């Protein structure tokens, strides 16, 4: 419990309160129709963006194949779920299994067994993605860096996407879909996001995180300081694909039909998110994910939005990227993290103003 003693109590309490508020929102969001979908996407996009940020922001290697790893997580989760549901339908009878997994969107609750199934599936899918990421990292990261690595990851993700497109058992042209009607809840996704955020923070605070940051700033100097550079890069890449696998697997329970956007569009989308939030800033990624999801799923469906935007929501991303690069190349938060200090400063300033006003009187 040493970590507890060393934490800034004010920040800790603020964060806990924030998470509690989000939890309550997540629980009660099931009453509405649109809100759960938006919350789910926010949490899952945040997870996937965080995963990409570890390699692009913290390790400083440019990766173009993030969508491929999300796709692996997604496909693995779907196949696992299909197998589980077959197995259970056989042994328990169809009716009982449906009862377990059914999730009624309006005011419904997920059966506790459903949570167990989802969590187990997600963990297995993440581990499989991590193993594939480890192999890819071992092959590519040791010999390549910079642009070459980016191109290799692009190629690898193209392989994944095309394999999935051309094998019917992996989804075929239309994308794989879950045949059972199981869906996850915002609460579960929030729990995953919080757990992953804590995981990343503690990981980056350890010697492994320090090595990753050292490799970002200077490979040669890191090697000369006794940091095993290649090993560190493979660790970071594996960790990133593990989290991408979690993101993809969670997405499978939210979006039963794989969008055709999977693959390259996803890779670009998450690059936009982390650049918008600030490379290397974890909380920045989350803020940017929130903005992008709200823009696509809330702003663009409003009736007063011009039809042109509503039909082509992605058209603005290019403009955003150019504007960010021109005016704030470090992203919304830069390399800083979101802290509660600004929140308290807000109140302090008000107090000061009050005092000066009173003094004037």
């Amino acid at each position, binding site marked *: 419990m040493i970590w507890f003693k060393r934490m800034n109590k004010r920040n800790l309490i603020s964060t806990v309160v924030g998470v509690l508020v989000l939890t309550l929102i997540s629980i009660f969001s099931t009453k509405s129709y649109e809100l759960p979908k938006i919350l789910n996407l926010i949490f899952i996009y945040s997870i996937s963006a965080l995963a990409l940020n570890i390699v692009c922001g913290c390790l400083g290697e440019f990766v173009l194949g993030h969508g491929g790893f999300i796709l692996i997580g997604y496909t693995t989760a779907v196949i696992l779920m299909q197998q589980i549901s077959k197995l259970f339908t056989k042994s328990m009878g169809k009716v009982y299994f449906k009862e377990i997994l059914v999730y009624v969107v309006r005011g419904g609750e997920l059966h506790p067994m459903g949570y167990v199934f989802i969590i187990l599936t997600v963990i297995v899918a993440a581990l499989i993605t991590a193993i594939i990421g480890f192999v890819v990292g071992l092959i590519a990261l040791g010999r390549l860096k910079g642009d070459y690595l980016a191109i290799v990851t692009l190629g690898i993700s193209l392989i994944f996407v095309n394999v999935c497109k051309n094998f019917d058992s992996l989804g075929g042209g239309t994308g794989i879909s879950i045949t059972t009607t199981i869906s996850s809840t915002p609460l579960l996704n929030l729990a995953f996001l919080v757990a992953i955020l804590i995981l990343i923070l503690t*990981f980056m605070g*350890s010697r*492994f995180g*320090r*090595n990753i*940051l050292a490799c970002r700033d200077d490979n*040669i100097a890191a090697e*000369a*300081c006794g940091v095993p550079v290649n090993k560190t890069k493979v660790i970071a890449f594996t960790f990133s694909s593990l989290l991408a696998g979690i993101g993809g697997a969670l997405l499978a329970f939210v979006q039963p039909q794989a969008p055709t956007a999977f693959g390259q569009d996803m890779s670009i989308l998450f690059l936009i998110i982390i650049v918008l939030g600030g490379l290397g800033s974890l909380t920045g990624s989350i803020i940017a994910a929130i903005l992008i999801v709200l823009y696509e799923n809330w702003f663009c469906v409003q009736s007063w939005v011009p039809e042109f935007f509503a039909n082509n929501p992605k058209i603005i991303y290019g403009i955003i990227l150019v504007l960010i690069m021109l005016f704030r190349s470090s992203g919304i938060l830069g390399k800083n993290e979101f802290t509660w200090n600004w929140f308290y400063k807000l109140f302090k300033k008000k107090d000061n103003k009050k005092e000066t006003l009173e003094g004037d009187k």
Partner: protein
Amino acid sequence: MANTVLKANNISIVFGGLKAVDNFSIEIKEGELVGLIGPNGAGKTTVFNMLTGVYVPTSGTVELCGKDVTKLNPHKRVELGISRTFQNIRLFKRMSVLENVKVSSNIHMNYSVFDGIFKTKKYYEQEDLATEEAMEILKVLGLEEYINEEAQNLPYGKQRKLEIARALASRPAILCLDEPAAGMNPTETEELMETIKIVREKFNTAILLIEHDMKLVMGICEWIKVISFGKEIATGTPVEIRNNKEVITAYLGE
């Protein structure tokens, strides 16, 4: 009789058709302060790179504390007790001064990913020890007031010192300094000489120094090796080197 820390036996390296270093040998004993000088392009930094593992010599062997390290990676050699600084400063620019130094402590830590994530007792023991050591080194080098500053914001002279501090954190048996006084004015050079002396006493390490500043080299080195066009031309004490005809010819021409 002091033990040999670093020994190079007839190392040579060929780049394409060019023999950059030809049959270079050196033996450095515990706690010695040795200078390696030579005109521009003589191959001094190439020698450094072979000693620290950036290049593998075409022929010859390198021994570190009695072990053959000719084919080992740089980070493995650091574990065996060699560490270096760079001619053009290579700090971890966006990390804090303290973190910069702690990166080098990595080789003395052995906690696992699990310990790091769950912050076990082992994690705190090793991290605290590393912080303590880093603070001690930073204090000796007069950088303790900057610990939370980003490395890139330090003034030039302090950045040089930070590089030395970082190299010291791996507890080296031999410290290789690649032109530590490059770009410094006379006062800063003077200060650096003091620092090197203090470092040698406090941390009990041998030092190999590449330098252009003759005042610095002649002032502090116990003995000096001179190379020119990849070949060793003289070895001796500062006084001997100063009066060596070949050295004068190499530097000033005939």
